Each structure stands twice: as C-alpha cells, then as structure tokens.
C-alpha cells in the first residue's frame, strides 16, 4: 500500500511541474473548496463552478507565494473566500442578487466556514477507518446514495447496509473523540 504524500510534499512536487501531483492536490482539496463556495457562501451552481476554476487557476499560478507548504489548506481557504466574496459583489452589481442578501451571506460566512472546518476534521478521522467503513459512510452521508445503490456498488445485501452504517458511525465517533481532533487552523499561510 502506498502512503499518501503530505500536503507539503504535494505542494513541493507541484512546483516542479508534476502533473500527477497537481491532479492529486485538486482531488484532495476539491470538496473543501466546493463546500466553502456552495455552503459557506451559498453561491449558485454556475457561479460556484466559475469560482472553483478561478481558485485552482490562481493557486496554480501563485503556488510560489505560499510561505509554508504545509499551510496549503488555510491558504486555499483564504483564496476561496476572496473569490467567493468577489463573485457575490459582482452578482450584486449585475443585480442578480440583492446587496442586503450579499451582506447577510457575508456576515454568516465565518460561522459556516467553521462548520466546514469541523467537517474536514471528521473526514480526516474517516480516512483512518477501514475501507469498508469509510466508503459506506461517504456514500450514504456525503454522496447521499440510497441503500439500494450502495448495496449494488459494494455487492452487499441491502439489509446489511443500515447495520454497517450504524456500526461504522460508532467507530468514527470513537476515533474522533479518542484522538481529540479539532478543526484545522484557518490562518493564512500565504504572503
């Protein structure tokens, strides 16, 4: 089994022009960036898609500005927030959203980002569970798949999916609590 590179290793490889490393970096942070755009800032799908591409384009262009390679996550978070706010303001200028609505979203974004950070911490614990647990929990709770879809994909009788979810959720809670996980820092790692 290969060991996944750390964030810092991944960033270092991206700087050398390693396309595979870039693909892995996008894959690793895609849910996080997507969640900030769509959940913390409530961007509609077409705006979020453009913002998502803008985040990764700027990240690619400015990776050399990152002071601490291990701080890629908070750096991306800050970049994503700036781009989301710009997108909201542009929508307000074009009158596709009320200015008051932009202010309401902006005011509540901090709290919703905190929730996304908690979700990241839970996913880190999820990644340490055995595959049969992490996959069933991801499919059911994050991908919103039905018992029938999960059963067919994993070749497991539908009747056992519910009990597996319950058992695996218990394991995840134990892992999360016993290891005293807390959300990742959100301070900027850029300059």
């Amino acid at each position, binding site marked *: 089994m290969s060991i996944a590179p750390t964030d810092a290793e991944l960033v270092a490889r991206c700087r050398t022009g390693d396309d595979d490393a870039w693909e892995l970096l996008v894959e690793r942070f*895609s849910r*996080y960036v997507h969640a900030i755009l769509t959940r913390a800032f409530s961007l509609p799908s077409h705006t979020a898609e453009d913002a*998502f*591409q803008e985040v990764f*384009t700027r990240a690619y262009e400015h990776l050399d500005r990152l002071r601490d390679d291990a701080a890629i996550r908070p750096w991306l978070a800050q970049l994503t927030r700036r781009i989301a706010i710009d997108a909201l303001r542009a929508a307000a200028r074009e009158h596709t959203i009320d200015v008051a609505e932009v202010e309401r979203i902006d005011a509540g974004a901090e709290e919703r980002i905190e929730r996304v950070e908690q979700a990241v911490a*839970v996913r880190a614990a999820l990644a340490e569970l055995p595959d049969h647990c992490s996959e069933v929990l*991801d499919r059911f709770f994050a991908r919103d798949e039905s018992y029938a879809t999960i059963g067919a994909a994993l070749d497991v009788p539908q009747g056992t999916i519910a009990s597996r979810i319950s058992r695996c959720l218990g394991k995840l*809670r134990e892992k*999360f609590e016993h290891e005293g996980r807390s959300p990742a820092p959100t301070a900027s790692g850029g300059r």
Partner: protein
Amino acid sequence: MNEERIAELLGELPPAPGAWVRAASELPRARREIGRLVSLAEADGAFRDALLADTTAALRGAGLEPAPRAVAQLRERLRQH
C-alpha cells in the same frame, strides 16, 4: 460530539461535480495544449480559422475537457494573434 452531529458533518463535504474536478486537474496540461494550438494557429491561417469556428471541438481533439474557461482562454489567445 454525538453520532448525529458527525453524520451531519459528513454531509457537509459532498464531492465536487466530476467535470469541475477534471477541468481543474487538467489545468497544467490545458495550458500547454492551448499554447501549442496557438503556436500552430500563428503559422497556419486556415488552421486558426478552423479553431475559431469550433473551439470546443479543437479542445476535445486535444484531449481536454472543453470547460467554458478553457474555451474562452483559447478564443482570447487566438484573437490576440
């Protein structure tokens, strides 16, 4: 943190749409391919016209996701030359 809360938080991070992830993943290669197409277009006017006529097909032909951003970038660069 109880299991209900953990389940809610798992739902906070659904996968980003596959096409978005593919387009972002292809960024380095897309830049190289767009640069190559623009160079070819500079040397061949007929090729340039064909590219402008169907930019989406040109990107697909280069093995790239014809994302709106990539299409716009290629068209913009072709217009500059």
